[in-house]
């Protein structure tokens, strides 16, 4: 073709029809769900923001000295204090009359466990901070130690499956209910398998003046033991089985759920992850734990009314439908 124009890839990168607060060159593993989640959040939140990041994978892989993958103001202090730092940033902004939104980010360790007290305080004091939790269900950065977010029966380096136990003995902490119990205007869950849902909830939270919380389910191929190519598949199955309910809570009350069109058995989700491999052994305890996990999913489905009545554009099957020409994920 004579009218062919060759655009260097580096120039093309500068002309993408979306804002990207997180650049390429970060050191996340192949198929990292958290990197994708953070990218989606920064895209939806736009440029007029500043971030406080707890210690964790995201902090480590985006800021290997001397580089930073962030294209937005970004502060890292400690593991336990992202919410407190964000609260301080917000107070300073307020004092200056600057409307720039402050976003705090942490993994499940920095949110459910180590930073929980700071988070609770920030929520209780009513800071205008949007807190995002990237949940990959263990301390992945330090070597896959169990957290209070690790699901029941998952094997980690500190909850190994073996003769004594079938993986983690305890249950996954219901963080979104705890956060919502602070009576904040908006707390929601979402999944990287549903980018439209992620973006919608980020925008909703950004628009609220007051503390808001978004819990994003983000697979970790290394820690969960699945191929990096399957990160989206795994995340989608967590939603479609009912193990990860996608919900919205306003002032503590359920304001919306993503219905599941076709409820899948939990084994569809579990069998493609090495952290649940022991549940498929010929072992009476394994069979019982499979039933236990199915019962937990059934409980979620019942509690939040996740069973879809009929096909819906926003249910677990409709929400990721694509069409020719894109912009589906707007």
């Amino acid at each position, binding site marked *: 073709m004579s009218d062919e124009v060759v655009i260097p890839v580096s120039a093309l990168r500068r002309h993408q029809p979306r804002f990207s607060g997180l*650049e390429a060159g970060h050191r996340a593993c192949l198929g990292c769900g958290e990197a994708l989640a953070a990218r989606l959040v920064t895209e939806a939140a736009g440029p007029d923001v500043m971030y406080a990041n707890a210690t964790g994978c995201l902090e480590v892989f985006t800021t290997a000295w001397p580089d930073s993958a962030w294209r937005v103001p970004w502060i890292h202090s400690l593991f336990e204090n992202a919410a407190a730092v964000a609260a301080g940033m917000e107070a300073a902004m307020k004092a200056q009359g600057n409307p720039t939104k402050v976003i705090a980010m942490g993994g499940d360790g920095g949110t459910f466990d180590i930073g929980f007290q700071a988070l609770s305080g920030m929520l209780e004091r009513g800071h205008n901070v949007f807190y995002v939790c990237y949940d990959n269900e263990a301390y992945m950065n330090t070597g896959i130690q169990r957290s209070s977010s690790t699901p029941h029966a998952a094997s980690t380096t500190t909850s190994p499956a073996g003769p004594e136990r079938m993986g983690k003995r305890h249950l996954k902490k219901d963080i979104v209910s705890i956060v919502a119990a602070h009576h904040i205007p908006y707390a929601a869950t979402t999944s990287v398998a549903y980018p439209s849902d992620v973006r919608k909830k980020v925008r909703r939270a950004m628009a609220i003046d007051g503390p808001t919380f978004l819990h994003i389910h983000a697979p970790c191929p290394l820690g969960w033991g699945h191929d990096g190519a399957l990160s989206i598949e795994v995340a989608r199955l967590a939603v479609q089985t009912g193990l990860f309910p996608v919900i919205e809570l306003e002032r503590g009350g359920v304001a919306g759920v993503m219905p599941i069109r076709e409820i899948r058995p939990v084994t569809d989700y579990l069998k493609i992850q090495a952290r649940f491999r022991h549940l498929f052994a010929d072992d009476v305890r394994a069979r019982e734990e499979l039933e236990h996990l199915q019962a937990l999913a059934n409980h979620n489905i019942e509690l939040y009314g996740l069973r879809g009545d009929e096909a819906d554009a926003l249910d677990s099957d409709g929400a990721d439908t694509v069409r020719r020409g894109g912009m589906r994920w707007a």
Partner: protein
Amino acid sequence: MGIKMTRGAIAYPGTSLEFKTGSWRVERPEHRHGAAPCHTACPAGEDAQAYLALVEEGRFREAWETIVGANPLPAVTGRVCHHPCETSCNRAQYDEAIAIHDVERFLGDQALKEGWTYPVSAPPASAPQVAVVGAGPAGCSAAYHLIRHGYQARLFDALPEAGGLLRTALPSYRLPRDILDREIERLLASGIQFSPGHRLGRDFSLDELRADYRAVFLAPGTQRGVEWSIGGQTPRDLHVGLDLLKQWLSVGSIPTWRSVAIVGGGNTAVDLARVLKRVGVPEVHIITHQSIPRAETAGGPDVMPAIHREVRQGLEEGIVIHEHRGVQRLVLRGEQVIGVELVHMKKLPDATGQRRFVTFEGTESLLHVEQVIPAIGQVLDPTGLEKIANKKRFLKADAWGRISGQEGLLVGGDARGDRGTVSEAIGDGRRGVAAIHNFLQSAGELQETERVLIGYDRLNLNYYEPAPRPEAPVLPVAERTAYQEIEGGLNRRQVMGEGHRCFSCGSCLACDNCWTLCPDVAVLKTQETAADGSHYVFDYSYCKGCGICAHECPSGYIVMRDEL
């Protein structure tokens, strides 16, 4: 450093763009244009996926031009083809196949309505001359493709009009004559030199042709009925199925009886049965040793080769089909046929695995009919082709139509003996011209551009939604006449809806999945179409090769290639 940050805060030194994570990669994602099953299945070589994509955007003329890149007669094939594209459509495994033939028909009709001309120009007088014998679907297709390739095409036919079997043997309730006339008229106007009324072996010889033209494409069809008798006996007034059909189509009347048995399971048998029904024969039977085709068995072994749709409509109209039956004896009173003795029979493998007819003793029955008409097939009329026919029933050739030992001489369509449909004949014309082009250019080995077939398992079905297939209107049985077309078409909105339903197997949907789901910002979107026809570019400086894009690509357009 005093760097002024842009609003988008584009990265400068000190950002992670300095760190090329692409060096971690052991597999790279690539765009690979795969073959949709509809494309692979089309005997004429149409790429339905390609034109459905254009139809969805309402780009009808470009869609039509895509079709006529392979098949110059879409308004014809949209009506008469048995559409194996739809049988193979991946969507059939999901909910219902795309109504591809309706889209093809719509585009064909739209072209006639709007007067679109082929995107070809008449060849210069200096271009090499190629002769085509027979102006049926194979010959018409060959002549058209010669023009497309820049050759002069001289098309001969024994009859006064072009069209071959489309004109002489297809009832107008299946293919209205004005549609055929206008398709053929446009085809001949594309620069083809048409010589009607020229019969091979009478008005010119094969040797003369081969001396006068650089290459010759033979598409004479099968003009001679297969010899038929039952134990040496035939009805006193023997009528051959295809001849009766031709007679009705050209003269408008045929002999009628009170009851008729047609022997054979092909389209001729079914068309003739339906015509007889229309001219007032109360009882029409078809006797076939094969089974009645159903949607799921059509095209299979031991199934009537007639088009499933036509059989179904025939049955609706009251044709009686006796499947797995053979005629064992003509029942005569004097010289008058009063019936046939039928027997159950089937083709079964014998001890050597060879499939042979087995008749089942004790299943004989008498069917009272006034007339028995064989419609058991046609063979080559060797007149003018004696030297190469060698008393064989057909002209054997390779996949491209090349006759072994005869340089520059090709054959296509029914005369090959291994074809039986209009679409196959049209495909023969296209392939034959590719071979002629190759031969005249001395271009070495011929190759069909092979793309990897995208099967159902290569699609990511999470990204599609169920949607019903629109149904084209069909005339109720009571309103069916000899001339009025039975099947209607879809409207513009329905056709665009089919474009939307298409999975786009093996081609980029531009759905943004890869761009949206890459954790490493290594998929970039292009404003203009990228060189490979997609709208995305992989930035291999940063791509770590995780494979999310390939796994989440709905249409199987991205593959992972090993780099080690």
